[in-house]
């Protein structure tokens, strides 16, 4: 039996007068991998940022595990520990070592002891294949390594859902695959993932559902086979031909 991890019902959001999200309806089952793509400014990042409450939606309902997101600070805090987020710009804490980046959340927000948190951190560093970088500072690592540390940092919170906001867009081309490999492994291990990306190879490999957004709307959602072979709308066809032509 599948359960619903994330549910967005008629979600609307405005930045001032600008209508960024228009009646967004999206359901993510537990264990499902959803890839969101679309031209820049289409609102895809805003969708994931609303899910973990970095942005507030003005209309509609967002439910995580059946619980509705409200403005209650306690509910926000509990959500933000359960929904992990990987940013385009990594956002590692530059003044802390890799290990301290990973243990900060578990020790301060989850009340783990230092030893427990360190054991967990080393476990996840192993999993993102950089166990020997634990004592370095983020600035000493390559972009790809930094992004893998960021993924490990999210995993240390043992989130139920992991959101990715263009995780490879700030990386040099030769580092993209090392990050994608880690993400594919996570997907295979059954993590619930929502990924905003233009990496269509990755999408084909792991996505259960493709979502195409344009001008704040979800224009199309379909399984990847259908999405790539036979897009329903002209907008989506045009977008795909643009990013797949090279």
């Amino acid at each position, binding site marked *: 039996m599948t359960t619903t991890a994330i549910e967005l019902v008629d979600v609307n959001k405005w930045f001032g007068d600008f209508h960024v999200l228009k009646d967004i309806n999206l359901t993510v089952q537990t264990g499902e991998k959803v890839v969101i793509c679309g031209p820049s400014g289409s609102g895809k990042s805003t969708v994931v940022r609303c899910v*973990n409450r970095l942005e507030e939606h003005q209309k509609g309902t967002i439910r995580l595990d059946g619980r509705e997101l409200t403005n209650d600070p306690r509910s926000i805090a509990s959500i933000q520990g359960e929904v*992990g987020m990987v*940013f385009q710009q990594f*956002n590692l804490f530059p003044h802390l070592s890799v290990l301290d980046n990973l243990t900060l*959340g578990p020790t*301060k*927000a*989850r009340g783990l002891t230092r030893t427990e948190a360190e054991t967990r951190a080393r476990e996840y560093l192993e999993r993102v294949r950089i166990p020997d970088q634990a004592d370095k500072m983020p600035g000493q690592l390559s972009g790809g390594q930094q992004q893998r540390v960021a993924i490990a940092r999210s995993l*240390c*919170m043992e989130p139920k859902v992991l959101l990715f906001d263009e995780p490879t867009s700030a990386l040099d081309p030769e580092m993209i695959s090392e990050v994608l490999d880690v993400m594919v492994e996570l997907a295979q291990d059954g993590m619930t993932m929502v990924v905003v990306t233009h990496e269509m190879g990755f999408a084909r490999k792991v996505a259960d559902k493709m979502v195409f957004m344009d001008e704040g709307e979800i224009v199309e959602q379909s399984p990847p086979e259908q999405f790539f072979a036979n897009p329903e709308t002209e907008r989506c066809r045009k977008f795909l031909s643009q990013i797949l032509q090279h």
Partner: protein
Amino acid sequence: MKKFIFPLALLTLLAGCSGNGTWGWYVIDPTTKSGWTNIQFLISGMWSTILISVIAAAISIVLGLVVALPGQSAKRGWRIVNRIYVEFIRSIPLLPMLFWVFYGLPIIFKSMGLDIPIDPFWGAIITLAISDSAFTAEIYRSGIQSIAKGQKEAAQTIGLNYAQTMRYVILPQAIRCILPPLANQFIYIVKMSAFASVIGMQELTRRANELVVTEYRPLELYSFLILEYLILVLIISAGVRWLERKMGSDERM
């Protein structure tokens, strides 16, 4: 020691041209008994100046943070409280504020049935601290704002609350660019502490004033006073530079 050689040389030079009676360095000539007593009297104000400045700066650093944090709030009401405090305090000249605290505040206390006397020492400290806190708050603000928004967001996504985000993520990074202007403010406090002389605080300026009244040698005594502040500030500057090196404020992240 090198820092002292130049002013001392200058002093000797000025002493040399005292032939026509413009200068009368005898008043602080350490080789005579009265000159030496005068020097001791002048320098004895140093301790009060330092004590007032250090306590006022310490209060201002804490108060400034308390004032700065609401300014970063997402809630408009908190930001307005911060703006009003900063704009209001920043616009009051130090001397009127000192008079208000020293002569006015006790009356308010009394009307509230409180028996809190304000002596020149605490009057000066309260005034300097409050007056400076508006500037300290602005320094914190620019420091906190210099940290990219992504840092705060990343902290939120690993479940840190507001206080934890500030303590473990934002402030440790902000302190590097907060420290140099904060040190500047400390030097400013040291200099402004001279105003405490007008409410009778026995610090450097007051001592010089009192001696001028009895010795009628304003030129030499105020020259000496300026030298005292110069040496004090140079020592602080050296200390600050040492601290900056230690905390890495002088290099890029």
